[in-house]
């Protein structure tokens, strides 16, 4: 096997093994930063040796054994230091003794627990949002610094610094390598879900990016979500998030036409949706609901997406259910954008007048002042009510608010068809 070929295989092995490796090591050394460095050392050793020796039969075990050797070396060195610096104290020594003993007892069964600890530490609130994202992709997604940098369109140096600083912050803050309990768990879990969904959205809204890495981010996020669902199978919101991501990802291929036009949800060719992902999404939603989580924020959004996924044609869309779900969502996390979507759903379910009532309340919302979709939706509803002069005014306002030529084309189309599918 040629050296570049071996390197690609090592990349693949790393992708599969790195999270478990780092998690297992972190459990022993109780420091995520040190664990990651040990894992990296093992990777470097593999890159040196495997091109000549060939890939071992069990590459994961090889990496773990190598990293453990390095860890023992590190402990011994530290112990020497300890003798020189008495302030390290006996506690630490005892801790390290037991840690070395742990090497022998560390068991495959615990790896799930270790991974979960690693998830919570990577998404710890002591870290900035950017740091959580970078650390999660690096430690759990097995991405290189370079890959993360390309995915987020920032210089590699920036990501490298973010990760170094994040690891230092975790060490300095003495963040324990553990799974939070009780009330803390809910808050910490929602931080984890936020990080995963941020990664997904970065990829999803940039599926258009010229860089191939960006669509891959959706897959990274989905993979993390699925892993997490396996680790905490009784947390409904995790399944809700996975459901939401699976269903959104299922539409990736149908979102764009042959001429390059964005295709709106209701205009998409539904046969081009990835029905394996749809089915997975619906199943995940069912799990969330069965666990009593139907009203969680992610589960609600997934349920809305599922209404569209279940409809074989736009005409079959259950708009009353979507309106009810938006109602629940608006109560749970009120926002003008949710409200605008609710207005559209309500208009589809109960007629344009009902939608217009909601829009008119929204019109006073300062955060939507410059938001062209508000007049655009209002124009649609007015046109449906045959109040054409008012509708034209709204469309003109919408067009004035968008400088983008293509957006204007979209508005022209919306105007021409007079349909409220303009969202």
């Amino acid at each position: 096997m040629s050296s570049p070929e071996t390197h690609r295989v090592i990349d693949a092995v790393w992708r599969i093994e790195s999270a478990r490796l780092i998690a297992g090591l972190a459990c022993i050394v109780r420091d995520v930063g040190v664990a990651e460095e040990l894992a990296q050392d093992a990777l470097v050793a593999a890159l040196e040796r495997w091109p000549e020796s060939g890939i071992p039969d069990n590459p994961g075990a090889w990496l773990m054994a190598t990293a453990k050797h390095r860890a023992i070396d590190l402990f011994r060195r530290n112990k020497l230091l300890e003798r020189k610096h008495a302030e390290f104290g006996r506690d630490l020594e005892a801790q390290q003794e037991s840690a070395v003993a742990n090497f022998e007892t560390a068991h495959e069964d615990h790896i799930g627990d270790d991974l979960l600890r690693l998830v919570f530490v990577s998404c710890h609130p002591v870290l900035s949002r950017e740091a959580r994202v970078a650390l999660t992709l690096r430690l759990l997604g097995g991405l290189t610094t370079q890959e993360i940098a390309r995915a987020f369109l920032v210089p590699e140096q920036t990501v490298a610094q973010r990760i170094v600083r994040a690891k230092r912050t975790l060490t300095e803050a003495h963040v324990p390598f553990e799974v939070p309990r009780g009330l803390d768990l809910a808050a910490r879990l929602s931080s984890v879900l936020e990080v995963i969904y941020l990664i997904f959205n970065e990829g999803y809204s940039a599926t258009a990016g010229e860089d191939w890495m960006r669509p891959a981010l959706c897959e990274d996020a989905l993979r993390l979500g699925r892993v997490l669902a396996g680790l905490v199978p009784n947390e409904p919101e995790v399944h809700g998030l996975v459901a939401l991501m699976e269903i959104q990802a299922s539409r990736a291929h149908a979102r764009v036409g042959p001429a390059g036009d964005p295709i709106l949800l209701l205009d998409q060719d539904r046969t081009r949706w990835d029905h394996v992902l749809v089915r997975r999404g619906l199943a995940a939603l069912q799990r969330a609901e069965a666990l009593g989580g139907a009203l969680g924020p992610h589960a609600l959004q997934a349920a809305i997406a599922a209404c569209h996924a279940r409809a074989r044609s736009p005409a079959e869309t259950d708009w009353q259910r979507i309106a009810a779900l938006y109602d629940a969502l608006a109560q749970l996390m009120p926002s003008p954008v949710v409200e605008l979507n609710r207005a559209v759903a309500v208009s589809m379910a109960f007629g344009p007048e009902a939608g217009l009532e909601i829009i008119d309340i929204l019109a006073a919302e300062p955060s939507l002042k410059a938001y062209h979709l508000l007049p655009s939706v209002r124009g649609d509803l007015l046109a449906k009510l045959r109040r054409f002069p008012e509708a034209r005014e709204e469309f003109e306002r919408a067009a004035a608010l968008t400088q983008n030529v293509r957006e204007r084309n979209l508005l022209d189309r919306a105007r021409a068809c007079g349909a409220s599918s303009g969202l």
Partner: protein
Amino acid sequence: MKFMMIVRATKDSEAGIMPTEELISAMGKYNEELMKAGVLLDLSGLQPSSKGARIRFSAGKRTIIDGPFVETKELIAGYWIIQVKSREEAIEWAKRAPAPFEDQECEIEIRQFFEMDDFAPSEAVDRMRERRREFEKTSPSTSFRA
């Protein structure tokens, strides 16, 4: 990227001989591993070709041919669909599968799905990407977003 890992049929699978307890348990463990790693999308075993049929398209005609089919090694006995980072990763996962028919010689074939990115770069594709990006920047919410 998505890959299908295809298990080729053998004489036994075509004869409808069920796998041993050991193999079933090893497969279960392997499937669980795929699932825990977040890469498994779908999987299934297929019944012998004697229960299947072929529809032949020739000169505008459709002819039904009932199974079984003789060229055993060309047949499919089961598949996994996985979503991974690279072809190498797909191969790495396939290598870790238990031998599908234990001691019998057999093969797992790996095939990549077509993705959006597989279309050759062209002006139209670039334009499409640019439009999508601009469009999505201004799209309001998750569910109505195209």
